[in-house]
């Protein structure tokens, strides 16, 4: 006993309060855009074809069936849609907007800042497939970063571009994974070593070798059009261009056309969000039409990573409650007005004063009156006004 299992942790009050605050502001943002909160079970039937089956914690059920702890919200929400909205799951065009927040578990080696239990907050937009829908998600990805007080940079990609270029260049299928991996690492030398022995035209080889460097501002799309000659690949570029055209202000948007190795279910555009001076992406998402559902896209935010990005900037500490109370009705009035009030452990005045000063609580509430325990704060008047407003202010 003692420490919790590897890759899990306890969250103490200051951090827990900050986490709730961040989750609440994200929920409010999504709610304001019409995304309804849903919940899905933490336990799932183990399915070897699940995109993260290899990383799932498995449990045995009573009847010898195998269960898995939830490892990803997107497949779980797709299942919910199939049950609750069979018409949409069958291809009917009707927008469903869902948001979620909760834990997921990955049975991995808990190394390099990766925990095995972590929290995801995200949204899914199901039942529509259009550039306008993609843009809504990318806009909300950007707003998510902004709403917690960070400066966003959102990067859009389309793995279809790389796939299409491989097919047009005539790269044999067994080599696609290795080439995609080299492109994903932006390793042009490794890619050259893979391409050189192949019997493909120099022109095609040069085009594929340009892909690792096709990232940057939105002008990247024009560079890509010149670097890669194939019409099928150009159609994939058009998809990205169509999404970007939806934005009036595209100054904090970026493009990476060499995003090649992503989760298996993405079939359309993908995106990630970064913030300045933080070395890891804060969220990731994309369109997965035809894999889990006929038309759907979404993104999820890793809460732990977001909190790390936030605490690098300012380590705010949760302030102690304002009032320690020996007067239950008075305490209720203050709480109703949004003031944090703690009930004193003892009814003795001396003990309560000691308790307040030890916990750093500035005021003691006794028989309808506030007493400053340490230095008098500038909110005393406001607190007294709340007590007076209920018709039985301080007496004497």
């Amino acid at each position: 006993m003692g420490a919790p299992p590897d890759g899990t942790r306890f969250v103490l009050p200051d951090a827990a309060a900050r986490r709730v605050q961040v989750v609440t502001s994200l929920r409010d943002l999504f709610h304001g855009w019409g995304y309804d909160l849903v919940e899905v079970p933490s336990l799932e039937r183990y399915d070897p074809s699940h995109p993260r089956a290899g990383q799932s914690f498995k449990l045995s059920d009573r009847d010898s069936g195998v269960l898995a702890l939830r490892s990803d919200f997107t497949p779980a929400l797709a299942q919910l849609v199939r049950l609750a909205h069979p018409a949409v799951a069958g291809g009917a065009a009707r927008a469903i907007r869902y948001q979620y927040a909760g834990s997921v578990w990955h049975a991995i080696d808990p190394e390099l800042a990766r925990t095995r239990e972590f929290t995801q907050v995200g949204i899914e937009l199901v039942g529509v497939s259009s550039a306008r829908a993609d843009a809504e998600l990318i806009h909300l990805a950007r707003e998510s970063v902004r709403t917690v007080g960070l400066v966003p940079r959102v990067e859009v990609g389309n793995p279809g571009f790389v796939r299409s270029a491989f097919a047009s260049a005539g790269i044999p299928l067994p080599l696609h994974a290795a080439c995609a991996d080299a492109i994903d690492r932006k390793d042009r030398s490794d890619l050259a070593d893979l391409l050189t022995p192949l019997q493909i035209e120099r022109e095609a080889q040069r085009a594929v070798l340009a892909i690792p460097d096709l990232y940057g501002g939105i002008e990247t799309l024009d560079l890509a059009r010149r670097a890669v000659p194939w019409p099928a690949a150009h159609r994939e570029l058009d998809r990205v261009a169509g999404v970007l055209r939806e934005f009036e202000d595209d100054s904090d948007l970026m493009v990476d056309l060499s995003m090649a190795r992503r989760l298996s279910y993405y079939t359309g555009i993908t995106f990630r969000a970064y913030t300045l001076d933080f070395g890891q992406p804060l969220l990731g998402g994309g369109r997965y039409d035809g894999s889990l559902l006929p038309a759907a896209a979404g993104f999820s935010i890793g809460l732990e990573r977001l909190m790390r990005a936030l605490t690098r900037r300012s380590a705010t500490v949760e302030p102690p409650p304002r009032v320690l109370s020996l007067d239950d009705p008075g305490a209720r009035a203050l709480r109703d007005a949004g003031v944090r009030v703690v009930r004193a452990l003892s009814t003795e005045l001396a003990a309560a004063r000691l308790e307040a000063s030890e916990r750093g609580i500035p005021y003691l509430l006794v028989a309808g009156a506030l007493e400053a325990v340490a230095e008098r704060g500038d909110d005393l008047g406001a607190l007294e006004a709340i007590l007076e407003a209920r018709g039985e202010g301080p007496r004497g």
Partner: protein
Amino acid sequence: MAEPKLVLALPKGRVMDDSLRAFGRAGLRLAPPESERAMRYDAGDAMVTLMRNADVPTYVELGVADAGVVGKDVLLETGARVYEPADLGFAACRLSLVRPRGATGTVERVATKYPRLATEYLRRIGSSAEVVKLTGNVELACLTGLADAVVDVVQTGETLRANGLEEVDVILRSSARFVVNRAALKLRGDVLRPLIAALRDLPGAR
């Protein structure tokens, strides 16, 4: 607001000297550390952090350093998710299976500083030998009988010959790579992209 300086992670020793020279030719003026003990210093055009080579991928993956230099062998061993946009060409070596000269029996136990790559290699060739992780001078394991083979870096082969060992199989060829944090390449592209282009153009690099 002035942009903060680029932070580079470099392995101590010869690779550091070669890296500083390469960066200099690529237009990034970096002073050498003032003392042997320096861990982190302002080198002029960038902040330099010095560490063991096996730690470079970690610093770069987590973004504590924006970029760094490390051998491909170490990079593959750690499996770090970083960008590898330039092969600098120096610190060239092979990762090889080494045995006492003339040994023919089956390999039962392999000593190595590269347990992940050694295990992958052994499984690939259908060997069920066990892998023992050591941290230094693995040839000694072969000479003392701790292991009947080692997987290690071979540069010229001099040390092997002097100790009656021979290179049996080349597992991979390695050289120093310029590695970049995935977010930094996007957020500091103004500094990093010209640097990458210049590094690729150096003699021996690509």
